[in-house]
């Protein structure tokens, strides 16, 4: 337990001076700003806080968070390969599985922090522009829905992070996959599949009201997220050894055929 605490605090120290965190901050702000434009684009002049935060949640799960979580998570793990620090940590000894678990916890905490930032910027924007329906009930609801859906997104992409942590630079593929995975949520949401699809499963669990006529089946949504946790857990149990992790694939050069000009 103490080792895990030390590992997680160590992960936060490692984040010091990492510019990738700014990508996260910018992505969160962009999602909120886009939501503000979407909310005011109707032209009716009826700008409501409920619309704003529902749009923020929509943008977060479909555009920002799945991509962002895998990007930062994958980057944190990949640095252990590129900085050649894996052997230093493994011989302490800290197993790769433990290290990965610590990183997953760190990414979970970071996701929560980004979600809090998303909520705060949404709230401050609403304050600045004096949205009509800005009430305590909506403020609290927006807070737990924005944070809760983001944590749901984190659970949904966990298997992607763990799977692509096994090889140097493999996380780039994971980031692309996560973006498509999140974006497909737009097409799934509102088609009775919201609860089945892990990225959107948290919407029903948290009572998201951004979709018209949505009927949520909470046990299915819960099962969908639990399945993701189980898959991530199984992938973590079967992590390869150091030499398999660090083996660079040998590129075989095609044999040159010497065609002599006559």
């Amino acid at each position, binding site marked *: 337990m*103490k*080792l895990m605490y*030390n*590992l997680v*605090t*160590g992960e936060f*120290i*490692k984040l*010091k*001076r*990492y510019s990738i965190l700014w990508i996260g901050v910018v992505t969160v702000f962009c999602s909120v700003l886009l939501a503000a434009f979407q909310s005011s684009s109707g032209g009716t002049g009826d700008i409501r806080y409920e619309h704003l935060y529902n749009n923020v949640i929509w943008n977060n799960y479909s555009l920002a968070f799945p991509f962002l979580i895998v990007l930062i998570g994958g980057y944190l793990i990949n*640095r252990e390969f590129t*900085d*050649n*620090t*894996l*052997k*230093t*940590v*493994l*011989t*302490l*000894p*800290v197993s790769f599985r433990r290290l990965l678990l610590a990183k997953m916890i760190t990414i979970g905490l970071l996701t929560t922090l980004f979600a809090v930032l998303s909520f705060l910027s949404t709230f401050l924007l609403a304050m600045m522009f004096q949205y009509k329906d800005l009430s305590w009930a909506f403020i609290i609801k927006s807070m737990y829905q924005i944070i809760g859906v983001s944590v749901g997104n984190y659970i949904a992409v966990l298997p992607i992070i763990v799977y692509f942590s096994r090889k140097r630079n493999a996380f780039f593929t994971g980031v692309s996959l996560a973006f498509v995975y999140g974006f497909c949520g737009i097409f799934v949401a509102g088609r009775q599949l919201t609860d089945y699809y892990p990225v959107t499963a948290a919407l029903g669990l948290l009572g998201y009201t951004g979709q018209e006529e949505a009927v949520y089946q909470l046990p299915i949504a819960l099962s969908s997220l639990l399945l993701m946790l189980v898959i991530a857990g199984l992938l973590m149990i079967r992590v390869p*050894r*150091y*030499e398999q992790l660090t083996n660079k694939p040998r590129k075989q050069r095609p044999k040159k055929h010497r065609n002599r000009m006559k």
Partner: protein
Amino acid sequence: MNDLIIQTKQLTKIYGEQKSVSNLNLHVRKGRIYGLLGRNGAGKTTTMKMLLGLTKPTEGEISIFGSDIQGAEGKIYPRIGNLIETPGFYPNLTGSENLKILARLRGVPHQNAVKRALEVVGLPYNDKKLLAQYSLGMKQRLGIANAIMHDPELLILDEPINGLDPIGIAEVREFIKRLSVEQGKTILISSHILSEIALLADDIGIIDHGVLLEESSLEMLEKKNSRYVHFIVSSAGQAARILELDFHTSHFHIDDDYSLRLHDTNIDVAAITRKFIESGIDVSEAHTQNDTLEDYFKRVTGGEGIA
């Protein structure tokens, strides 16, 4: 023997079809500096990686501190400090920050362990310089600081002087010697630089193409080095005939037309020289010599020497 800190039995590592380490029987004794000497690619790093659990042996057994390492990694590895190849650290952090993270994970109890380790290797504590701005020599020093920070009983150092300047090499050498002599630490050190191993090690293992060709104390190796009488004469062929016919020995080696080495040192050199001169052979030089460690290395590996 009970004083063995590291012992391997038939340790083998095969990558694909290539045998990187073959049936290695290593014996590192308590409180000694064991120098693993071999050319680049001889199997030194692979051996050390197997000892540290970074690479799984294909065959063979490893015993450290008298216990099989299989299943006892959690107890054994905290007692070891290591430096394998170029040290890996986080480039966005300072040297002190890097060591503080590793100290936390190791559970180093002493508050000033990081400071002391940095002082030992001559690096400043709480310096603002990031690791990305460190030279290779500074990274190597930091790697050594990391290896000694938790006061381990055994140090496994893979080419620790790589990238160090001559003064740095001398400092690290002295420091390693001090650790062994004053604190009784057991040290396994690898190098491809023979002179370094000769200056540091108490015991030497010569590894070539994954095979441990020789394992002995430095003292024994020096004794083993053959003595011979080196003659520079006007005709080495004629001199060889005299040695065979008049002195009844064939224990010599002709280097070229003028140079001959007589390995049978029991024969009186003055008598041989007198006989050569009487037979009309001019003798320019006649002196007794010992093989250098490099000559010995060449002889054992059957190839070129190393630096």
